[in-house]
């Protein structure tokens, strides 16, 4: 037998869903979205943020702006994912965005780790080569000692 829904949930179902976003909430949402949008664009302009990383941020800001201006989109999505309150849709959306962003960061970090290791290794090889060349005992030349003379003759 399924347990009956908790009283809290039952109560929450009865919370009236506003038919449009209250004016102050709307203002704050629009300002926030514009703020993110402009900050990201400015960072890209100053070359402090690479274009490839800005995409996800811009998409989020744009989406937030859309939601703030057009409340029906939010209601529609809320209905689509089966949420009760539009607010939870917003929270859920934020969560998804953060997860995506940090996943993207992890992938980039993995790649950077590979590359920095490869570079450190390369530097080690080059340093050894330089040392040998300065000592005049470059192993590559040493081995080839016979070859060039034979070739040149």
């Amino acid at each position, binding site marked *: 037998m399924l347990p009956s829904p908790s009283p809290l949930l039952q109560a929450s179902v009865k919370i009236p869903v506003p038919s449009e976003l209250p004016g102050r909430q709307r203002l704050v949402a629009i300002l926030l979205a514009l703020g993110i949008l402009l900050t990201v664009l400015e960072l890209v302009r100053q070359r402090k943020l690479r274009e490839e990383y800005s995409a996800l941020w811009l998409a989020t800001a744009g989406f937030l702006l859309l939601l703030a201006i057009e409340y029906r989109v939010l209601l529609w999505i809320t209905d689509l994912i089966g949420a009760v309150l539009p607010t939870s849709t917003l929270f859920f959306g934020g969560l998804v965005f953060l997860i995506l962003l940090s996943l993207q960061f992890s992938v980039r970090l993995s790649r950077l780790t*590979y590359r920095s290791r490869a570079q450190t*290794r390369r530097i080690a090889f080059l340093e050894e080569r330089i040392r040998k060349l300065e000592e005049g005992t470059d192993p590559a030349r040493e081995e080839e000692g016979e*070859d060039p003379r*034979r070739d040149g003759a």
Partner: protein
Amino acid sequence: MEETSRPAAAALRRPRPLKGVHPGRRTLVVIPAKDEAANLPSLLTEVARFHPLGEVLVVDDGSRDETSRIAGRLGCRVLRHCFNLGYGSTLLTGYHYALQHDYRYLVQIDGDGQHPPAAIEALLAPLIAGEADVVIGSRYLNGGNPETGRLRRLGALPLAWIASLWTGTRITDPTSGMQALRREAVLELCSDGFPDDFPDIDVLIHLHRKGFRLREIPVSMRPRRHGRSMHGGLRALYYFFRMAVCLLLLPVRRSSPYRRQRLSAAGS
């Protein structure tokens, strides 16, 4: 590629020997070392009794002490990481070096003096005889000294079972850092499949899956003289977690897209 008709100047500038031109090179001993300045002199003196120091490569993993200078003064080849990259990465650097310089066999022993250089010959024997492609020095196989680190033994036991079952070869000490590899095995590890943090049984299983023959021989290891070991603490926990992920994904894992770039970059 450039053949004999080229002028001498061009030949002089030719960067390094072509493959197969110098078959004389045989064995490189790779010693990964981090802050082992206290252990290195005695270890290297001992190694020199069994192997010419000119064919020994000490890979200094960003030590803060005199590790690389001491190794260089004693006549070893030295590669130095400017950052600390970890044990696996340090080995990998040695592998790349061996490939670049056309060594046929590679022996790795730790820089802390736990691995007896006297066993180098014994490790190489199955490779040279063509009986195995990878030889592991085990401290637990009969003839070894099982007293060393009871806790460590307990931790390594399940891994040893997994490795033995998977490879069909009896493996008692999969975490052993004392190994000898044939060039082809080194090439395989450099192309793909070598974890650059803690190499473990996933390496052995990977090699087995690629058709390389593994073999364990008993080696009596010694307690380290100076400094601290790299195992222990939270590391061990992370290590088991990594092992689990690795083993789960091993059969379906793809080759790393970055590894290929790196190989072509290092092998230029």
